[in-house]
């Protein structure tokens, strides 16, 4: 896990100012001491603010995030079924914008929605777990229509239990509804 670039840059700038401040103190250049002290304090405060913001950052609503990949349901399923480790390299953790037919819309006992994309002939699907802020959009979707969704790809469940294989997208947002 890497520290964000902005924080590294801030730390580097603060270190430079601290060094300059030490030189100023040692050489008794009084007129530089005060501004450099102020810059060091400002830099540290900025770093703390940035750090806290980064620490408290929540997952983004994907309806506002640019997709890494745009793909059809058939193509995504095909890629995973052909070679799941290669497909993981291309899609795992990426923001995927996917279009396809709605097989069904599921609502679990806790009120969470999953939009299942795919054709009705095969067992394979792309299961799109909806971001709760977009639940209302999912509730009005109907099986048989088509849609475009955006979600984060969390991987592939091979058909190891006799339930059909599924590509899973998480935190999904509906981009376009079609009939």
């Amino acid at each position, binding site marked *: 896990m890497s520290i964000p670039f902005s924080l590294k840059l801030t730390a580097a700038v603060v270190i430079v100012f601290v060094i300059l401040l030490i030189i100023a103190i040692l050489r008794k250049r009084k007129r530089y001491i005060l501004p450099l002290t102020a810059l060091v304090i400002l830099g540290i405060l900025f770093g703390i603010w940035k750090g806290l913001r980064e*620490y408290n950052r929540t997952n983004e609503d994907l309806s506002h995030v640019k997709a890494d990949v745009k793909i059809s349901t058939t193509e995504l399923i095909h890629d995973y079924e052909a070679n799941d480790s290669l497909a993981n390299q291309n899609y795992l953790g990426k923001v995927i914008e996917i279009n396809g037919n709605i097989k069904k819309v599921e609502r679990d006992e806790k009120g969470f929605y999953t939009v299942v994309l795919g054709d009705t002939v095969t067992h394979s699907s792309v299961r799109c777990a909806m971001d709760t802020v977009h639940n209302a959009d999912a509730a009005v979707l109907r099986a048989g229509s088509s849609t475009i969704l955006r979600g984060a790809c969390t991987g592939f469940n091979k058909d190891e239990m006799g339930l059909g294989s599924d590509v899973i997208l998480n935190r999904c947002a509906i981009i376009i509804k079609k009939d």
Partner: protein
Amino acid sequence: MMKKANIVLGGLLLLASLAGSAQGKFYTKTGRISFFSSTPLEDIDAINRSVVGVLDTKTGDLQFAALMKGFEFRKALMQEHFNADYAESTKYPKAEFKGQITNNGEINYTTNGSFAAKVKGKLTIHGVTRDIETSGTITVKDGKLTLASTFNVLVADYNITIEKLYRDNIAKTIKVTVDCTLSPL
């Protein structure tokens, strides 16, 4: 003679297909598994709502699979940390459990009620498989089964190392909670 053989063969095939059909099996694709780490410094919890699970009520065979990237944290930074440094989700994308309900005979899957269940099996996380034994409850309600269990997992058991910097933030024992409602297959 031939006809008789055909009938017998047909009967056997029919029986085999009935036995092989999913009768007695329950499944979910929206199961929930969450985990919780508590230290004086901070509490960390995450939930996966897309857990796949199958229970064969005839044999007690139980299987679960959860994609590691499917665990959602309150804070994005924690989620990124978890996937990159601890679970190494790109290398080990899935956690799996394969096991049995050892007291399957004591559970009546056909009537509404709550039953204590004992579970034994193999849990694979981060590419490491370990035997686990736990208990839980199976609640039968209107033809659906809700499986609930809580157990502890030692982080070190699964070759997950936590850097010194975060040792006080992450507990050595993680509490795992399973809450899955299974429908007939």
